[in-house]
């Protein structure tokens, strides 16, 4: 029995907890992508760099607050700086929309033109981020590091394996629950949210019934910017901030949105957890886990790792291909093919 509990603790520590945190971060990113897709009808390649942009301003504000001696005690100061990041990021994407995308919207351009334009925006955003904060790693987390330390868990339960939960992980889950609840409340209960859903379902009908498209588009961008900044900041707190990593997050984020069904917010969340859990489960080395459950003579010398962590992107890619092969509209029906 104790072996079984130890195995469970081990798995929770290295798979369950990190995957829930990572999945939550991906979910916020994928929600942003899927919202933009649902309303503006293109895949926004600049989303990863928008995350980096918002996070950068959060970091700058954090540093400023830290220099003033302001902090939140056990919680990271970045939480206090988050509104600044969201605000600047929202202004930035609105400017981008006005200068870049609006023109193509008026022209009713092909979606692929938006895609190329978003690549241009991605370049510019990436350049701005590197210009201001540089291409290197930045660490901005402060406050307490752990909610539960592995050692405390061990003394508490008497097991030989501990579970540690970082503050950033706990914070991620709590924030995501709040943000997602607020988002769904907004989309389902408020007038603006309902008009967004109507616009996403059928643009012409929505316009006929007097919905103001400019407002819908602006609200979408603000939501996307807020989601991107929150996701980026949480990811940065949990791991670290490096502009190129945020560009690379684009693939798992898109995979989450497509696996769940592009344009479907609920799907984006489900997709994000599918991707996060597969990525971490497939790249985890099960040697010690198996050591608790299997008789010793069954074990071979290997690490029992399905795929090296170097290939974690391959996991989201393969899931993406499987979904495209067998169910191109995603798990939940998205706007689809």
């Amino acid at each position, binding site marked *: 029995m104790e072996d079984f509990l130890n195995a469970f603790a081990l798995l929770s520590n290295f798979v369950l907890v990190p995957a829930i945190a990572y999945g939550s971060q991906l979910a916020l990113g994928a929600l942003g992508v899927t919202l933009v897709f649902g309303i503006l009808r293109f895949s926004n390649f600049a989303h990863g760099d928008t995350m980096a942009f918002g996070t950068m301003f959060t970091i700058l504000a954090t540093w400023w607050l830290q220099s003033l001696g302001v902090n939140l005690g056990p919680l990271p100061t970045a939480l206090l700086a988050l509104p600044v990041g969201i605000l600047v990021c929202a202004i930035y994407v609105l400017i981008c929309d006005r200068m870049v995308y609006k023109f193509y919207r008026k022209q009713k351009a092909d979606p692929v033109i938006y895609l*190329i334009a978003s690549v*241009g925006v991605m*370049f510019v955003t*990436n350049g701005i981020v*590197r210009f201001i904060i540089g*291409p290197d790693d930045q660490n901005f987390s402060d406050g307490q590091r752990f909610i539960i330390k592995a050692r405390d868990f061990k003394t508490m339960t008497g097991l030989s394996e501990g579970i540690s939960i970082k503050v950033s992980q706990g914070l991620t889950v709590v924030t995501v629950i709040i943000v997602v609840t607020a988002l769904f409340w907004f989309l389902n209960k408020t007038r603006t949210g309902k008009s967004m859903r109507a616009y996403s379902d059928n643009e012409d009908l929505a316009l006929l019934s007097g919905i103001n498209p400019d407002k819908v588009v602006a609200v979408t961008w603000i939501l996307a910017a807020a989601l991107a900044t929150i996701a980026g900041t949480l990811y940065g707190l949990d791991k670290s901030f490096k502009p190129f990593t945020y560009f690379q997050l684009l693939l798992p984020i*898109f*995979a989450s949105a497509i696996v769940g069904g592009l344009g479907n917010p609920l799907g984006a969340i489900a997709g994000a957890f599918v991707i996060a859990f597969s990525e971490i489960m497939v790249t985890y080395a099960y040697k010690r886990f198996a050591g608790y459950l299997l008789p010793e003579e069954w074990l071979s010398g290997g690490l029992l790792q399905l795929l090296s962590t170097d290939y974690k*992107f391959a996991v989201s890619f393969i899931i993406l291909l499987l979904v*495209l092969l067998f169910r191109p509209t995603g798990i939940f029906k998205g706007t689809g093919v």
Partner: protein
Amino acid sequence: MKSAMKNVFLFSIMAALIVFVGQYQSWNLALSILNLCLISAVMALGVNIQWGYAGLFNVGVMGFAAMGGLAAMLISVSPVREAWSAGGVGVIIGLFILISTVLAAVFSYKKMAKSPLRALLIVFICVVGYFILRSVVDPATSAIEKVNPASTGYLGGLGLPILLAWPVGGLFAGAVAWVVGKITLGLRTDYLAIATLGISEIIVAVLKHEDWLTRGVKNVTGLSRPVPYEIGLQKSEWFLSLSQRLGANHVTFSSIFVKLCYAGLFTIVLLIVLWLSEKALRSPWGRMMRAIRDNEVSANAMGKDITARHLQVFVLGSIVVGIAGAMLTTLDGQLTPSTYQPLRFTFLIWVMVIVGGSGNNWGAVLGGFVIWFFWIEAEPLGLWLMDLITSGMDADSPLRAHLIESAAHMRLMTMGLILLLALRFSPRGLIPEKVGRHH
């Protein structure tokens, strides 16, 4: 004829710019820019075949170029006999297991009706195949990596002339494109874009981490060359007398001579690809491709198999990109997986095609030249600009130091702006696509 004059004019400006660099910076630099311009032009032609002819958005140019680079290494490096005897058999058996797993999965996909059972069976076949593969290949690769890891630790290649790698690189890239295209073409354009983004990241990850194949980040240096070596030239009689006759320093001239040889080879490839592309564009096949691009529904109604044609053109374009990738690695003389960056290898090529003129091969070539030239020259220009802006500031002000230090990142921003401006104000590019005459 007016447009022809304009094109000649544009190309001569480009030539004048390169000559200008030669005169005022150095001819060595001018020729290295020219060589990379030529390679970029071939790559841009490849992307233009996909985007300009068929409207396919490939975000994985980097991966296909890397396949070409891999081919250059695998063809030219001589085999490491010890490594082959240590794990060669295991790797070859692994390859057979891989092929048979894929065949079994494809066979069950084709032969069974669409059902959850089929999906389960295919997943099962893949998982079992994967485990058998790993159990055979893992010991073999770790044995290979243990063979003298400081200098080899990999299987090496075939030891053939590196020129042979250019077509092989094309084949490698084409094969990958076929697999990706087979799955994603026929769905939304976005899906192709994201899938190609993914495959290119994975290809580069494989090059970086599979040490037994590519030595990973330890790099394979000293690839053989298709042209003479500088040292050899400096020792040969005819070369010394030639440089004396031209009144040039023989050391500088030897490196210029080598670069000229490369430029000659690259120009031949560029001309062949350009000629074939033009031929194809003007053929009934090219007209059909443009018809599909401009109106898929009506082309489909005329009985054209759109997905199959898209697959064809996607593979063809990727082959061209693969050839260019092999040329690039040949020029570098080494395979350095960590240099494959998406901004440099994928998105820069896109800027070239959009700025040059999508759908027009000459436009793509010109775009390749112009954008590469500015990509290289943006750095000195940016530094100069920053110096100018900050000249009023205190010499040791931190803001000034930061601005000058960050000047290098300006080029990403500049490229993005160029792309956005071109797309907005000159969407048909410097040399627009010729629209057929209406009778």
